[in-house]
């Protein structure tokens, strides 16, 4: 006789189950701010040939408020992904695996260098 198996339903609140799942959901939601900032940049670039409109768009109160709100979310998004890079990039030096800290650290270093270069160009 075939036994009657019990299938437990997956609750819609599965992501509230533990802190790790909550942090995952926050990371996923921060992508909305990354996407929003990307759209904002596209709008800015569309005014690239007119410096006054460009700076007006960049410095209007709505844009500043949006950037202030988006910044912590985008930083959280970037940091959490940079910390995960050693999962995707696995390098070996002979039998020894290159330390995950080196992989993630290289990303942070490049992030800092590129940010610095952009700052130098802008200023």
């Amino acid at each position: 006789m075939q036994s009657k198996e019990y299938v437990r339903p997956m609750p819609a609140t599965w992501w509230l189950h533990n802190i790790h799942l909550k942090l995952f959901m926050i990371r996923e939601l921060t992508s909305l701010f990354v996407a929003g900032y990307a759209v904002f940049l596209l709008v800015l670039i569309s005014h690239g040939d007119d410096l006054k409109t460009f700076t007006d768009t960049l410095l209007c109160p709505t844009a500043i408020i949006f950037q202030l709100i988006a910044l912590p979310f985008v930083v959280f998004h970037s940091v959490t992904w940079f910390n995960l890079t050693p999962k995707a990039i696995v390098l070996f030096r002979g039998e020894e695996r290159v330390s995950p800290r080196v992989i993630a650290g290289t990303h942070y270093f490049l992030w800092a260098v590129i940010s610095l270069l952009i700052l130098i160009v802008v200023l």
Partner: protein
Amino acid sequence: MDKTITLEVFRYLPDQENQPRFQSYAVPYREDWVVLDALNYIKDYLDGTLSFRWSCRMGVCGSCGMMVNGDPKLTCAAFLKDYYPNPIRVEPLTNFPVIRDLVINFDDFLHKLKEIKAWLIPKEEKPVSTGEYLQTPAQLAQYKQYSMCINCMLCYAACPVYGLEPKFLGPAAIALGQRYNLDSRDGAKDQRADFISSSEGIWECTFIGECTRVCPKHVDPAGAIQQAKVINTQEWWLSFLMPWGKRGTHAK
């Protein structure tokens, strides 16, 4: 009176009940006991009708995985002292159908292991007389971590993607697929590609990372899946840029 600890155990008796329930048992508290010891005490002295799987009692066989206070654990490695004096809730692994009490049906996982061909398929079969398939320590290091998998299925119980989409190949099957794909002696990467690279394979994973967190053998299935995504993407680009090349033939 000696100290006791309460175990709230998931009970499901399909021949008697339609719905599961929780039953509480007070068992002796001992510092060196694990949850599996407490379950065996219940089975031996309190209630012989309780059903659960176990075998080695030393974190090798992978058969005593259960939800302990909502977290997938090998019950042979979950010490009572880490929960005492609070009660411990023991349930069957989530995301699997329950056959009875703490016993799950894992046919789906076994089917997926078969699909992924989780065994070594040599590039060319050699007669025994020619000796072993040799491998350097550096070649071994490439896949050794993934070969530690004991098929305990804690990663499947922890994975919300598998819970929401049971067709997902799942963490352990993909990690084991990678284990053989990265083995210098293996030659069946193309045979596994249809499953690993499909939408129900690596691309279904949203990189939650719970599989890696709960893995008792530090296999890091989430890492295996992300590495497979990187390799697959590289091969897709190579096949796109050099369609005449051999390397990209199995890229999807």
